């Protein structure tokens, strides 16, 4: 974004008249809107894709009536949700009840500010990108507890509390496994992490060393748990809690919860791609200038690479969801504290030892001589 802002200020005459702070501000607002325009339809489309994938995995068809193969199903669902009556229970804490869905959505939407899309395409390449992402995505839990509390309903409250317990437990192994990568790169910036990897699988951090390999799985499992998705969806366990923290919600606010959930799936996949799977590093070298390739073409290739990797991971999330049953609460805590946390610590120490012995050489580099 900064790059585009600088480009605009340098190349467009009329912007010189305005103080550059304002130009930045306007560009940031426009950038935010563009991101929103990306996130909302993408999350909507993911609901449709998820339902089709689920259908396929269960030997059924899934929605296929609205538009060709049902691709407009999510539009119909969205319109329906917006048109529905927005019911607030009389016993609810009105202000908190109204506010909660926005906090949940904003929490997951804010992370997009630091998510890279390609070499140049990133809203803000913060030098503490990873820290920022985990910080703002923790806001989601506040919104969820808020909604559970404000609904004034046993089931909602239980859902909210479970969600809090779960997210706090799984944050620990998640951050610990990210630390392993941070050890390797020595940077917290998203773009810096990607630049430290190459395009080929052996240059990814996933295959950098055995510890990073395990760290990826620990990270991904805890991230899925943070999204409250099956098999970790005890906060909204239908068979026990009706729908958990969002039981009392209807209409647009319910839609926001849904949107946040699917936006979150994209976020965790994108973060995993950034940290472990080489990000936007294009599989081939695109020399700028020599073949008349514009930098934007390189950007486009990067964007496509990144999106393909991310959506493959999103598919894995769906695949997991339609394969595994839900964990019980105590099982969830066992997995989190007895298995994930020790393994994550082991990884961290292992990575540190690896770096002590071999520096930041990967397995491929060692085998290659």
């Amino acid at each position, binding site marked *: 974004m900064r790059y585009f802002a600088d480009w605009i200020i340098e190349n467009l005459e009329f912007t010189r008249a305005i103080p550059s702070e304002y130009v930045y501000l306007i560009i940031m607002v426009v950038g935010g809107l563009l991101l929103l325009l990306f996130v909302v339809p993408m999350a909507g489309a993911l609901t449709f894709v998820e339902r089709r*994938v689920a*259908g*396929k*995995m*269960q*030997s*059924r*068809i899934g929605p296929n009536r609205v538009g060709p193969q049902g691709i407009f199903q999510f539009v119909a669902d969205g319109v329906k949700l917006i048109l529905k009556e927005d019911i607030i229970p009389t016993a609810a804490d009105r202000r908190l009840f109204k506010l909660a869905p926005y906090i949940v959505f904003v929490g997951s939407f804010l992370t997009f500010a630091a998510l890279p899309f390609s070499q140049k395409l990133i809203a803000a390449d913060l030098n503490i990108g990873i820290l920022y992402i985990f910080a703002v995505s923790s806001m989601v839990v506040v919104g969820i507890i808020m909604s559970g509390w404000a609904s004034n309903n046993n089931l909602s409250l239980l859902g909210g509390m479970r969600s809090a317990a779960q997210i706090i437990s799984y944050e620990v192994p998640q951050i610990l496994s990210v630390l392993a990568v941070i050890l390797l790169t020595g940077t917290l910036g998203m773009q810096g992490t990607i630049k430290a990897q190459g395009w080929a699988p052996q240059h990814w951090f996933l295959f950098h060393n055995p510890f990073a390999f395990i760290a990826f799985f620990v990270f991904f499992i805890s991230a899925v748990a943070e999204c409250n998705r099956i098999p970790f969806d005890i906060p909204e366990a239908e068979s026990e809690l009706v729908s958990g923290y969002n039981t009392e919600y209807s209409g647009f606010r319910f839609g926001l919860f849904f949107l946040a959930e699917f936006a979150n799936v994209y976020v965790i996949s994108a973060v995993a791609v950034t940290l472990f799977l080489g990000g936007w590093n294009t599989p081939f070298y695109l020399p700028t200038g020599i073949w008349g390739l514009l930098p934007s073409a390189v950007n486009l290739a990067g964007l496509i690479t990144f999106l393909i990797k991310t959506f493959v991971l999103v598919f894995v999330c769906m*695949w*997991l969801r*339609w*394969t*595994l049953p839900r964990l019980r609460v105590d099982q969830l805590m066992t997995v989190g504290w007895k*298995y994930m946390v020790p393994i994550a610590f082991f990884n961290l120490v292992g990575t540190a030892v690896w770096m002590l012995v071999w520096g930041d050489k990967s397995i491929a580099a060692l085998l290659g001589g």
Partner: protein
Amino acid sequence: MRRYFLNIWEAISTIAKGMGVTLVHFTPARKSITIQYPDRTPVPVVETLPERSRGMLTFDPDVCDACSMCAMTCPIDCISIDRERVEGAKGFVLKRFDIDMAKCMYCGLCTEACPVKPKGLEHTREFEGATDRMEDLILEFIDEKKHRELVEKALKKAEKLKAAQNEE
């Protein structure tokens, strides 16, 4: 301690197994078993039903004897028959033959009772009778025109019979 690592191994291997199963289902190798009734079936569902299934009743006034056995057999009286004698003809002529399919329980007793061959009353495979007006389910097989036709037929038959007797 051994148990701990066994648990991890078990988790990994069973999840991998399960995901393998779902992946096989995801590939085009497995077709969906959904039947998209009513509008997207390869052949109309009626045609896939067995020959002897009991659907809506059908009635053939031309073979019926107007004996009203069916109406008497029916346990819930869904068949209403009005019949009349015609001057110069033998037996009865049907004036009304209504079956209330809303009441019918598809027991098939009426078709069993019908003495003529081929049967006047029979089940078809047709079952899609859903409607939002109950009256639509009363099947009326005899109207004014059909009634007149039946009267003429009965008279003609009687004449023929008389002519045959005269010849003897």
